[in-house]
């Protein structure tokens, strides 16, 4: 693993660079002139004189050739400067930094709910010998995965907040406001974890080493947790990594539905107002999150399964 780390890091950097470059290309080279939008300030673009536009172009370096613009932007991005918002004029890094804590809370709460919930459903569903319970538990995940986030969110708000008045429906005030949005995001995530974990548990339970463990005199619970679960953890771990990135995407919907501030709302606003530097900053943030979670998952796998650390060896078989 120590040998693999530099390579994994290099791959991570490449992904970041590629994400930045592609988003630069897509956002700047496609129709929709940022300067016209900027100058209009939300009003009518025709009221701005060509001189003003030219001046803006010069100020933002948009009159330079594209490769030069790209090089400057990339160099700035490397130094941590992602430009300034077209509206408002705040630095993009500032906007993201302000929005991030709320979304991190949401993501953290979501994962804390989803992983134990999904894990428990899978473990119980494969463990119980009651047929009806098994079938009930193992059909829940499919329901969780297929229910659309915005619908679940609205339903929860309707019931819990409006009808029963238990929890706040909107806003960012304290932990109580975190419950409904994180539950909304956690349900499909838990469903996915449970589906994958239950499948890999069933596979593990059919392996011959499970017979060996039972032949030792181990009880069912011990066989399930000690022998099967540990061997079945790799697929749900991978899914958990993907989900962590997915929570960021999910926050766009959930923060809108629950009127929370955060990265998701920032994204929604930036896209609707064509605030290109902000959108690009968010793309880079998303790439960062994915790259980091994959790195963490990659590093965790060999801890779960000693065979992975050994796969570097050339496979000489006859």
């Amino acid at each position, binding site marked *: 693993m120590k*040998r693999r780390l530099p390579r994994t890091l290099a791959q991570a950097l490449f992904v970041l660079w590629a994400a930045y470059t592609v988003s630069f290309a897509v956002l700047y080279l496609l129709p929709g002139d940022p300067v016209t939008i900027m100058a209009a300030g939300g009003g009518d673009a025709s009221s701005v004189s060509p001189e003003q536009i030219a001046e803006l172009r010069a100020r933002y370096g948009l009159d330079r050739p594209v490769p030069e613009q790209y090089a400057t932007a990339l160099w700035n991005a490397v130094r941590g400067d992602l430009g300034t918002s077209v509206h408002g004029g705040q630095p993009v890094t500032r906007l993201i930094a302000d929005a991030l804590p709320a979304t991190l809370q949401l993501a953290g709460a979501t994962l804390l709910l989803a992983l134990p919930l999904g894990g428990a459903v899978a473990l119980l569903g494969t463990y119980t010998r009651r047929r009806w319970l098994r079938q009930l538990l193992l059909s829940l995940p499919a329901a969780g995965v297929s229910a659309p986030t915005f619908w679940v969110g609205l339903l929860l708000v309707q019931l819990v907040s409006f009808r029963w008045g238990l929890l706040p429906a909107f806003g960012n005030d304290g932990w109580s406001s975190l419950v409904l949005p994180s539950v909304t995001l956690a349900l499909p995530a838990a469903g996915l974890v449970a589906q994958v974990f239950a499948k890999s548990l069933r596979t593990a339970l059919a*392996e*011959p*080493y499970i*017979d*060996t*463990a*039972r*032949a*030792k*005199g*181990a*009880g*069912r619970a*011990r066989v399930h947790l000690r*022998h099967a679960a*540990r*061997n079945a953890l790799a697929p749900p771990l991978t899914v958990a990594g993907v989900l962590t990135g997915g929570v960021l995407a999910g926050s766009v919907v959930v923060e809108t539905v629950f009127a929370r501030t955060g990265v998701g709302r920032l994204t929604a606003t930036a896209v609707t107002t064509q605030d290109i530097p902000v959108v690009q900053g968010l793309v880079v943030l998303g790439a960062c999150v994915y790259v980091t979670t994959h790195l963490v998952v990659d590093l965790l796998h060999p801890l*779960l*399964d*000693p*065979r992975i650390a*050994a796969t*570097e*060896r*050339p496979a*000489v*078989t*006859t």
Partner: protein
Amino acid sequence: MTTPPTSSEPEALLAVRDLTITYATRAGPVPAVRGVDLTVRPGEVLALVGESGSGKSTTAHAVLGLLPPGARVDGGTIRYAGTDLAAADESVLRAHRGRAIGLVPQDPAVSLNPVQRVGSQVAEVLLLHGLAADRDTAHARAAELLGEAGLDRPRDRARQYPHELSGGMRQRVLIAIALAARPRLLVADEPTSALDVTVQRTILDHLDTLTRTSETAVLLITHDLGVAADRAGRVAVMARGRVVETGPTDEVLTSPRHPYTKALLAAAPAFAPARRTPSGTAEARDGGTPAPAPADLLTAENLVKEYPHRRTGRHTPPPPAVDGVSLRVARGETLALVGESGSGKSTTARLLLRLTDPTAGRITFDGQDVTRLRGAALRALRRRLQIVYQNPYTSLDPRLPVAEIVAEPLRAFRVAGRAERTRRVAVLLDRVHLPADVARRRPAELSGGQRQRVAIARALALRPDLVVCDEPVSALDVSAQAHVLDVLAELQSEDGLSYLFITHDLAVVRRIAHRVAVMRHGRIVETGPVETVFTEPREAWTRALLDAVPGRGRSAPADD
């Protein structure tokens, strides 16, 4: 639950009476074990012999209360020291498993928990049955047990994971697990079928010693009559869920009474006389003359295959997988390439088939140098060189009907039109003795032997000159083995095919091959006509390999 032992057999440690087990399938209940009676006395070895599907493994697992899902004991009793395990509840069974009855499972490659150190897996037995005061003593004792099971440096081994051990070492770990709690009965379910003969022998020897000193009784499940002959005092032969014959080993194997036992003995390669001739080309095989046409079809000169090594920690590069191999196969001849796993025989076959490129050396086929053939010329060569793989359960596409599997090479080379292909498939299936209706079925509906014959039909579709058979019968039961070998011999005599026959089973070599090449550590250590090599081996290694064949003492009584 507990009743005193029946007076008729006071000495029985395990008494199975009228045991009936059925599997629930979609087509309704299928009986797997039908009224089986077995008795194992303290300290004795009883071999339960039969082919796959005979119910022997199901019986063994029932003794431990470890039937697979869907299987149910429908009647009968399994008394262990007076307790009926067939009627016992889970807690009674758990107290017996590991403590009173140990299990050595079938395949050491997959029977150990891959993510746990082997020491912990042995220690678990002691902890489960309260045989160690705490974790530390359990782990110390586990290391001792690994040493007793024959592992070197047991303390270091205990800290290793299963994937870091060889198959033989893993089986020793499983034996340490099975014997950890000093059970009075050991159920050994095909304990060495997955291992090389030499490893098989040392493991079985060691198991013998351990169980004899501790007076542990053994219920040895095996399909290998040779193993039964060497190891068991008594034999019970199972067929179609019934015990058809039981008695002292010598009696059953020398004068079998039941026709099934006779058939099993006749099919077992270890007990069959060396095959001088398959039907047909008798003259070719008799008298040691190699082959009808002396022209070499395939030759290899000094083949070397090195795999790149990436481990930076190593100072010396690993030895080449194939290290200077020269061989030749004449037209109409069968050359057997024997050796243990890791000896380089499969790599050699891949080189000859041009599936891998050699690091050095030269290959000629039909007089032409094919070592560096590329593109269309290589594709043309493929038509004449075909392969039959070891495992018929994975080498056939499960989604295709047999007709399409067999016709695939024809389609790939655009050999014939649709109607002509159908006709040829029918002929090919007939030649490998498969009924015509097999064409419409899928591999899952066929037995192992039938599948392997489908694979042979596919290999023959393009009328090749040489077929490489990579352990083609090692996954099959003895009677299916015999049938597949007969089909191969028949095809050879009709078409003048050449075979390169890769195997670790010397008994099979005797049956099928004209000449044999013995491989070890990537080199050929001995080569010659089968009879010569088998009766007068020059190399010590060849002799060791021959000595390790189970049941050999019986097949060649004049020898030792």
